């Protein structure tokens, strides 16, 4: 019971900090934190796919892009309110993810990773190609989101709250999925596909569902990004962001909800801090940091935390266990 309390307290504190942030920080900083939350959502979806279902995707920037463009097109060309586009983006990407998940059934590990990588590489060119829909190279620019009067919030605070509430909802959703039968099926398939099948689990359905869910998360994140930035352009999507999401997953810790949050913040802020240290060598700093993290925390920051906890709860440290 104590263990649960500790985690709950930590969650409440983190939640409180996140709630307080838009009232403490300047708008530009608030938007950065919101961006990190959006990344956390993507990493979370990827975590469901990789951590719990054992499939690797290096192509999720395409789903983010689909979500982002759906939101932008609906708002700009059809006058939708921003918030209404979020569920649509999620639903469309759920479908897209399932469609992608079908051929993915035949591919394993490395092959799946590289096919999805090619998918991400091709995506910007597709956006440019279908320029009747996507407005082509110059992208789409939208009016900034405006906070509704009844909230009493500033515009940037309102946007942040939309992001935060959506992120919280998705984290709860992920937690429930993982603990549900579907989640347990995913874990079973990941650990031993043959045994899972023998136990009566429909492996194909579970795996495509995992793909669909992870794409849903990415699509919602894309729509949120459109809300945050107020614009989309093809050059925002491609191979490098996709690789970034996997980096976030590994830094945070595969298969951990908290890890997704840490991972999202890490991949948003670490490259910028590296650039602040030295712009010319920012890659060396950031890359070096990734290598160092792999050594220090091969199971991610969350894995590091677990190891630390084990150390601290060893018999010689009994004293610290009293809360």
């Amino acid at each position: 019971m104590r263990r649960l309390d500790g985690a709950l307290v930590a969650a409440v504190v983190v939640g409180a900090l996140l709630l307080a942030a838009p009232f403490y920080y300047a708008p530009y900083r608030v938007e950065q934190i919101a961006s990190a939350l959006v990344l956390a959502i993507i990493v979370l979806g990827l975590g469901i796919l990789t951590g719990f279902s054992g499939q690797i995707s290096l192509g999720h920037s395409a789903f983010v892009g689909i979500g982002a463009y759906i939101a932008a097109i609906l708002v700009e060309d059809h006058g939708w309110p921003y918030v209404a586009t979020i569920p649509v983006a999620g639903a469309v990407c759920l479908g897209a993810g399932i469609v992608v998940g079908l051929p993915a059934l035949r591919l394993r590990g490395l092959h799946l990773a590289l096919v999805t990588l090619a998918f991400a590489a091709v995506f910007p060119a597709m956006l440019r190609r279908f320029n009747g829909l996507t407005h082509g190279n110059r992208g789409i620019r939208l009016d900034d989101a405006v906070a509704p009067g009844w909230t009493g919030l500033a515009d940037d605070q309102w946007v942040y709250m939309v992001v935060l509430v959506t992120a919280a909802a998705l984290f709860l959703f992920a937690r429930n999925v993982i603990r549900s039968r579907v989640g347990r099926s995913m874990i079973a398939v990941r650990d031993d596909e043959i045994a899972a099948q023998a136990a009566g689990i429909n492996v194909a359905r579970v795996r495509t569902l995992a793909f669909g869910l992870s794409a849903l998360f990415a699509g919602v994140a894309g729509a949120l990004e459109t809300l945050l930035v107020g614009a989309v352009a093809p050059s925002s999507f491609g191979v490098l962001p996709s690789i970034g999401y996997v980096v976030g997953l590994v830094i945070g810790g595969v298969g951990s909800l908290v890890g997704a949050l840490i991972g999202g913040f890490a991949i948003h802020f670490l490259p910028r801090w590296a650039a602040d240290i030295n712009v010319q060598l920012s890659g060396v700093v950031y890359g070096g940091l990734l290598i160092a993290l792999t050594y220090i925390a091969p199971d991610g920051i969350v894995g590091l935390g677990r190891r630390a906890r084990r150390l601290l709860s060893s018999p010689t440290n009994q004293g610290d266990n009293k809360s």
Partner: protein
Amino acid sequence: MKTRNRAIILSLAALAAACGGQRGDDESSPASTSVDDTTTSVDDTTTTVGAATTTEGTAAVASTPGTEVTTTEAEATTTEAEATTTEAEATTTTEAAPASLIDLADCPADYNPIEGVTEDEIRFASSVPQSGPAGTFNFIASGIRSYFNYYNATKGGYEGRNLVLDIKDDVYEPNRTLENVEEFLGSDQRPFAFLGMIGTPNNLFVWDKINEACIPHLYVLTGAAEWGADIPTHPWSVGVLPVYQLEVGVFLDYLVEQNPGVKTLALLYQNDDYGESYRMGLEKAAAEHGLEIVATETHERGETIIDIQINNLAESGADVFIGGITGDTCTNAIRGIGESAWDPILYISQTCTSKNFLDAAGPDGATGADKHAADVYSVTYIQDPSNPAFASSPGMSEYLANVEVYKDPNMPMLPNVGITAVGWQIGELVAATLESAGELSRPAIMDAARSLDFDGSMLLDGVSFQTGGTADPYALEQFSVVQYDGTNYKYSEIRDYEGRTLDFVDVDDLALE
């Protein structure tokens, strides 16, 4: 509570506090009161309460380029005195310049026209690619900084104030550009002006915000036509580079003049906004001359393997090859065409008009494209630092003697790279703009930028920066057509297209809202 959880909470709190960037009292525009205090003690800080005129409608700009938007068409409105003004004198800019296009009534309530100016400094801000695949652009910023350092050291800055350029890296991603601009806008030290930002979608992402804040968006470094085609909505944004559509139109005029028998064109362009501008410009200019574009190919930015495209274009046997391309692709295209059996007149974008690009395809480079190098054409407006023919010109001598001496040690510096010289020239232009502004304030510098007549020291003889309000919003409209023969450049006489950029642009194609 467990030690681990305690530790997590403490570190999170420490992190949160260390992040800085606290909210100001006024949420919508972070307070800049500290800057006000320092600037009121400085001389010459009467803010311009202009006889602000707004032009009637954009139709005047778009449909009748070349006609003067006279003040009689415009509505004269005088703005109310702002809180920080002293004597409300309507100041107009120098010479016979049009009246100010800036209407301070549209600006935020606590607007400070001399924000970013302190006793010792005038702060400029920029967001450019400094790392990643587009990191070459960092040379431009390096050139600007070098000039500023030189100017500060040798001329004591502008009226005793050093010109300072703060730069943030955006890796050519528009989202990062927006982030950087917002960080500049939200900081305690907001800039006097934004300067030299790169990338068309990047600048499109931010120009609304910058204009809403009434901060100069100076000398946007892309050849997109947007930066002069929408002054009523974006009065604070001004470009400087020649517009790509104009460039290709100039070449086509020259081509038809010198080679009347030419009939067919083949186009290779980079698949982004940059290349697309060439396509749009070529389609328009070709139609006007009755030339036919018989083959078109694209390549992705960053994709340097273009054999397939070259083969397809060669198949067409067109008379002329037009390259709306940049960087190493120019070199690869020249080489590729040189090796094929196709022998067209070869034109490449002015962004590649530098010996260090073209030599790479010459006799000592990878392949012997010398038989085709005689037909490589481009246009240019600036002296090429890698061409020894310019070494002794006054502007080039000054540049070569100083650009490396005054460089920022943390930035790359290669004097013979063409874009470094562009950066140096932009720096000089900024200083000249300040000097021609009647006073040191944001509206005044914008008015000066819209009434330029400056003979940049690095520009070719006969080329100068000229702007004239909404009638002539584009600064560089004079070119020399250049022919590279494998060893030397041959420069044509200056072709003057002053005020005619919009003849070559279809405003409907632009990203204006």
